[in-house]
């Protein structure tokens, strides 16, 4: 039978506002009314039922069972009289077309309004929602408490402050007038804010606009959003701040413009760092001050997991503290390690939050620790999702913070060594100018960079439904990154023009004239603004305390120190023999001379290092391109951090009458990608934390937080990227290369859609080899608390060769979302951390094979490492038993896995 095509003829159209699900008290009162006009109501503006709004609106939190967002279109087959009929397969069908509107879902993002060809849609505040309550206990109080009573968690995002700051009102512009003549900025050199550098010491990034973008992570922003912002930053001549989600490999051609941010999750491969402009440490969460961050599993898609080097589709945690720096004391240690890694030429920054009462002290401490710049994060404004009570925890005003930070640094004699970026809640060129006048070198704007991409500050970034595609990856294609970049560039240039006009009006010529000039007058009620701008002339000079000799030396560039140590380094290098070098550290050699000598030796072709009588020297091997490092003695804090491809062995050593154990101090091997690191002794806290790939073997036990945030392996894509060199590309060529790569992506996306696109990364993900950490444990104590906390795919093994009653501490694997811990011996339920469970045996043959191989390797590595007799007796006993009855040993293992995961991906050859 020949089939005729089905032809639909619309009999009637209707607009229907879907009724509330529930009537009465728990009737959810929509915040916004979404009204669509019909042709009868407003001729020329009537809805034509084109379905555009259905496609464009994505917001739908409460009725996820519905296909679209606020709108949905229904077609009902009817007969001529309008009675509903069964829909025929073919022929002419009469339909009634109904546009449904679910007003509860609307967040006022205005996407539909801007896309409706008929201008039929009006979205406005629902007066019935907003007029409940009274002046004090307003609709918000009632609405939020009702939401709480429904069991909702009150999460928000795109925070722009809840209290109006006085930033816009009550100003007197202290303009240069008759008595202090100024140049005309349209025709003469005046008010030019286009030459500055970020960083004031050796590393100086040339900046052509004092307005910066902010750290926002890849993942929280769609690919296209990041790309648009990145290109805009390149074109504007300013660095780009990656946020803590690392950067997409497709964006590596622009690496020299990017400053990577290390958040408390330490996400990313951390290889190839010399290609970047710098490195910034994130000391706090934007929206959730004093708290950690959390990425739900669904958002951690294959592509994100690839970039962050974690297991895909599993939740991710950025813990509250930056675990490698628990206090100010540890800042210099962090900086010296990063400096050893990156050298003088790269910027090292700190992102600090203005929520602590001793903020000036913190700023000074950061500057003294040797950071090149400090980003001051003020209270208002952030993209992050947070509980509403956190969003109200605002921190201080950005202008005031810039003011007190600038003064504190001047008093400490450090202002000429550190740049200040201040950000948070700045909304236009005028406010940006205030921030500079108050003492910041640069002003950062985050959310405002979204406005040219369509953002209407609807506060729904966290829902993954951003209709503009800005903060939702699957709708990212709604943005054309190149058009978006142009718009961002234009907006920033307009701000700059406004600022330059103000600067010229004040009689200023350059960026340096403006910074810290405090030349506006404030006569309003805001106490913080009054403190900054209201008190009349801020004294031209402050009492400055001199830098001590030791402090000045500490802050001096590495190149100077290298020069000073030249003679020593040459003497050390006299011992080079082929590609090997023995260095007698002689207990007391400084960490810096040792590191510099090793670097110099590696430059000259040394690949294998033997260090003798080592006694706690810090950051051994950091930034040293070595194949093998043999440490005889105690490895100090941060040794082997960020190393790649290296093999490390430690051994006990004797110095005079003193036996130096082959132990490792705190944070050894953090954030590394070694081939193997073997510690013939015990380790202290944070061993191999944030490590991405490699084998980590420890003969004895460890302190707390070993294998913290242990990652899931280094994907090939990063290895491939490492081999590429973009240093010769001009900025235009960089942008072209970004464009070319994006076109490829877009072509695929258009053909196959987002889900298929990210599937392309599955192979890369599966081929990764997760890192493995294996500990023998000592005779007297096992592993400390928080073992493998927040781990994300790596594998930990505790052999417990002395059969300790309790081989491990508390909060075991707390927050571990992928990977697992194998523990030989007894684990009590109450020792487990949150979100994990205990499996009392290891049955899977792959897992057993893997364990067997790891144990055999462990025995092979340590049998000749020369450890103390007591340990070796236990070791030999264990090794013999293992050789005789491996199955028996394997039977004694339990494992700890995430609550919802049984299978473990173990690396077997």
């Amino acid at each position, binding site marked *: 039978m020949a089939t005729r095509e089905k032809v639909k003829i619309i009999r009637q159209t209707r607009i229907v506002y879907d009724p509330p699900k529930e009537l009465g008290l728990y009737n959810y009162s929509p915040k916004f009314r979404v009204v669509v006009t019909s042709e009868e109501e407003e001729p020329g503006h009537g809805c034509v039922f084109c379905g555009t709004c259905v496609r464009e609106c994505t917001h739908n939190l409460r009725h996820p069972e519905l296909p679209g967002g606020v709108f949905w279109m229904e077609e009902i087959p009817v007969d001529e009289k309008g009675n509903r009929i069964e829909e025929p397969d073919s022929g002419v069908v009469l339909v009634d077309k109904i546009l449904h509107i679910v007003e509860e879902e609307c967040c006022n993002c205005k996407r539909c309004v801007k896309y409706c060809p008929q201008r039929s849609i009006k979205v406005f505040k629902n007066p019935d929602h907003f007029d409940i309550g009274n002046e004090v206990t307003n609709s918000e109080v009632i609405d939020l408490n009702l939401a709480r009573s429904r069991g909702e968690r009150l999460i928000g995002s795109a925070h722009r402050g809840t209290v109006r700051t006085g930033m816009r009102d009550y100003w007197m512009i202290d303009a240069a007038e008759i008595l202090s003549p100024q140049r005309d900025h349209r025709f003469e050199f005046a008010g030019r804010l286009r030459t500055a550098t970020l960083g004031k010491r050796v590393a100086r990034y040339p900046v052509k606009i004092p307005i910066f973008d902010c750290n926002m992570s890849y993942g929280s922003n769609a690919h296209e959003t990041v790309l648009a912002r990145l290109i805009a930053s390149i074109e504007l001549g300013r660095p780009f701040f990656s946020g803590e989600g690392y950067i997409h490999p497709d964006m590596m051609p622009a690496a020299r413009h990017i400053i990577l941010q290390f958040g408390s999750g330490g996400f990313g491969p951390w290889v190839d760092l010399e290609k970047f402009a710098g490195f910034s440490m994130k000391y706090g969460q934007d929206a959730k001050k004093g708290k950690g961050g959390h990425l739900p599993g669904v958002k951690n898609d294959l592509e994100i997991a690839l970039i962050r080097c974690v297991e895909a589709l599993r939740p991710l945690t950025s813990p509250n503290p930056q675990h490698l720096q628990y206090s100010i004391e540890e800042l210099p240690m962090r900086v010296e390690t990063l400096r050893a890694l990156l050298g003088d030429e790269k910027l090292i920054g700190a992102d600090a939050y203005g929520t602590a009462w*001793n903020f000036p002290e913190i700023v000074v401490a950061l500057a003294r620790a040797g950071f090149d710049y400090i980003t001051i994060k003020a209270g208002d404004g952030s993209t992050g999702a947070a509980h509403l009570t956190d969003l109200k925890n605002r921190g201080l005003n950005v202008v005031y913070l810039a003011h007190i930070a600038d003064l504190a640094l001047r008093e400490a004699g450090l202002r000429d060594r550190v740049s200040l970026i201040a950000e948070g809640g700045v909304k236009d060129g005028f406010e940006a100018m205030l921030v500079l006048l108050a003492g910041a070198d640069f002003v950062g704007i985050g959310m405002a960079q979204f406005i040219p991409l369509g953002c209407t500050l609807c506060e729904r970034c966290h829902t993954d439904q951003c209709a503009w595609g800005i903060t939702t990856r699957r709708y990212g294609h709604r943005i054309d990154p190149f058009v978006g970049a142009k718009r961002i560039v234009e907006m920033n240039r307009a701000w700059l023009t406004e600022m330059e006009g103000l600067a010229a009006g004040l009689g200023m010529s350059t960026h340096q004239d403006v910074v810290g000039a405090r030349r506006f007058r404030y006569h309003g009620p805001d106490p913080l603004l009054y403190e900054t701008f209201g008190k009349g002339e801020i004294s031209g000079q402050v009492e400055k305390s001199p830098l001590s000799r030791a402090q000045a030396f500490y802050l001096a560039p590495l190149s100077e120190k290298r020069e000073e140590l030249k003679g020593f380094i040459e003497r050390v290098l006299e011992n080079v023999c082929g590609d090997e070098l023995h260095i007698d550290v002689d207990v007391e050699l400084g960490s810096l001379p040792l590191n510099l000598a090793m670097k110099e030796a590696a430059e000259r072709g040394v690949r294998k290092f033997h260090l003798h009588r080592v006694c706690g020297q810090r950051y051994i091997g950091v930034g040293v391109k070595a194949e093998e490092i043999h440490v005889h003695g105690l490895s100090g804090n941060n040794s082997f951090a960020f190393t790649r491809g290296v093999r490390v062995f430690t051994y006990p050593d004797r110095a005079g009458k003193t036996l130096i154990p082959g132990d490792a101090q705190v944070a050894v091997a953090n954030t590394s990608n070694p081939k193997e690191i073997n510690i013939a002794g015990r380790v202290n806290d944070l061993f191999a934390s944030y490590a991405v790939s490699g084998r980590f073997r420890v003969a004895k036990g460890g302190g707390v937080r070993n294998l913290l945030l242990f990652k899931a392996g280094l994907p090939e894509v990063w290895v491939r990227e490492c081999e590429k060199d973009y240093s010769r590309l001009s900025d235009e060529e960089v942008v072209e290369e970004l464009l070319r790569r994006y076109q490829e992506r877009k072509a695929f996306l258009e053909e196959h859609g987002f889900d298929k696109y990210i599937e392309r990364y599955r192979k890369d993900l599966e081929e990764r080899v997760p890192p493995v950490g294996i500990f023998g444990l000592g005779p007297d104590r096992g592993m400390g608390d928080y073992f493998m906390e927040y781990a994300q795919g790596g594998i930990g093994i505790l052999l417990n060769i002395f059969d300790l009653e309790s081989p491990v501490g508390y909060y075991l694997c707390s927050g571990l979302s992928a990977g697992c811990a194998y523990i030989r011996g007894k684990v009590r339920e109450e020792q487990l951390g949150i979100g994990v469970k205990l499996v009392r045996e290891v049955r899977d043959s792959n897992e057993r094979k893997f364990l067997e191989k790891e144990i055999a390797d462990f025995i092979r590595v340590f049998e000749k490492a020369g450890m103390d007799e007591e340990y070796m007796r236990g070791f030999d006993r264990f090794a013999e038993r293992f050789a005789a009855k491996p199955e028996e040993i394997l039977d004694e293992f339990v494992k700890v896995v995430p609550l919802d995961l049984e299978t473990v991906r173990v690396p077997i050859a």
Partner: protein
Amino acid sequence: MVTAREISVEAFSGGERGIPGGACGLLAAAGNIELLPLISSAGCLQYRARTGAGVTLKGIYRDQPFYIFHVMFRTEGKRKELEAWFTSYGIHLLEREEMVKRKFYYEYDMPRMVKYTVSPPSREEMLEIAKHDDPDRYVTERVMEFNSRFRDDARIFSSSRDSGTFLTAFELADTIKIFEIEKYSSESIDALQVHVRWPTSAGRGLWWGPQPIALFNISGIHNGHLSSDRANARALEQLGIRMQVGTDSEAIFLEVAHLVQEGYSLQEIEWIMAQKFPEELLSMDEEERKRYEELTRHPIYSQFKMSGPSTAIVLVDDILVGITDRDHLRPFAVGEGEDFVILASEERAVISGAYYMGKDVSLFTPEAGKVVGYRIKEGVVERLPLSWRRGYGHP
């Protein structure tokens, strides 16, 4: 007459803004030890610490009946007035001695350093003024009072009958040089504490910041940054224990000393200062748990706490106690040798200390929140069991 240049109040005590927080390196040792090698090993912690260093030497003033005060005067003008204050309390300043050679005042900007040999008033006088006749307590109370009253003008930074504390706002090497500490190396020192400091902001509270903080026979060194919200200070206030320096560090020393002196066992001190995770209680035996809960719910002791990164080493009379916070946000290492012990904020200080003394040592790192205690008697050091308490079974 030595001319110390006058130091501003801001620099001396921090004035209204107080003492900035700081970060530190610690080393303590006891037993058959040598001064200079240990000072060199503490020097390896100096990278952490650039402003402020101090040393306490136990035993240098032993075998004599008087209290030895080390006092720094911010301004010369106030000295007479402050001396008179003591006299008004019946305290006799028997001898006054310059602690620092004149040349150092040219080289360094520092307060005038004076050593006093002090004797307490008669019993009758004490009873009249203070309603008790315990001379140690009387003198300690006056020192606390002096220090809180005149903190902008002077600081008594050592007031023991046995040990002496030496502090400067400079580096360790400077402290050694200024007080000519080598001269004590021939004496037999029972125990020592060394502290090097890195304050978060330079230029203020320089002379109240440095540690060891010493008060009569208590002295302590601490490394960390508590997030205890001043709960410790409030608790001490309720016990009537007055803080002189006012920092969290001082609070911890005073608390540990209080607990030792009140006869709490090391185990109990550990429970109070570094409360266990609730999960740990499940594997405690019934009786222990009862005692634990009794202590940790004590209205005052429940406010004693080391939360946040923190390691403290306190010397109370002849007892040396070391402890870290329960989360172990600060490392802590101990080395036991044949006839000595070293406690330090890092493994390397322990090992190099033993190395410089030419001895072998066995290193361990106490577990998070665990107390270690030692007693030093006539140069002999002994590890104390956790059950030890003053006056009970272990005299």
